[in-house]
């Protein structure tokens, strides 16, 4: 099992550009999450999904969009990139909610200049 994979690992965007961060998991997990982690900080939830076709906003959703057309994939879309979106983005998945372990991908380091 590859677990949770994310692409790309690094990306530099210019202000106003758009991009999609890819996330895939092969553990057949229903729950998937997108977090951002700013330098020296914990994780803030952007969006999450409880199954294919179902998504919901987290703590910091502004400037982002998601879709969940399959169980495996959960892409994160950045429209009109801003410097405030410079961060490391982590995708995670879990079998269930609450006490279930979340499995994280290796992260995407994004810089917006």
């Amino acid at each position, binding site marked *: 099992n590859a677990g*949770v994979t994310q692409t790309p690992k690094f990306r530099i965007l210019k202000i106003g550009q758009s991009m999609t961060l890819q996330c895939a998991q092969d553990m057949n997990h229903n*729950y998937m*999450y997108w*977090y951002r982690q700013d330098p*020296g*900080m*914990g*994780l*803030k*939830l952007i969006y*999450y999904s*409880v199954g294919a076709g179902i998504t*919901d906003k*987290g*703590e910091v959703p502004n400037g982002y969009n998601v879709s969940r057309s399959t169980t495996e994939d959960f892409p994160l879309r950045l429209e009109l990139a801003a410097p405030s979106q410079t961060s490391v983005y*982590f995708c*995670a998945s879990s079998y269930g*909610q*609450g*006490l279930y*372990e*979340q499995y*994280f*991908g*290796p*992260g995407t380091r994004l810089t917006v200049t």
Partner: protein
Amino acid sequence: TQLLEQSPQFLSIQEGENLTVYCNSSSVFSSLQWYRQEPGEGPVLLVTVVTGGEVKKLKRLTFQFGDARKDSSLHITAAQPGDTGLYLCAGGDTGANNLFFGTGTRLTVIP
């Protein structure tokens, strides 16, 4: 938002010393998890505690969930350089679909 505050924010100690990291909230959680994150990687689960007052040991690491399920601590005995990393606590709520992550404690163990 259910806030989880961790202290200290940074900790630098010598190999062999003991340390305790704290995770505090004004909210009650149904479960509390601790993750460790190494540079350039995603967090990895260390332990989950679900009962107030519960204590779990993982080799040199001891985790405790507060009686009121609002706080937790992580104690490391005889720290080693391999313990270096960012330690994150995360609270789970039966009414929520996601975890609430703490602010993190960055530990450096000097050989």
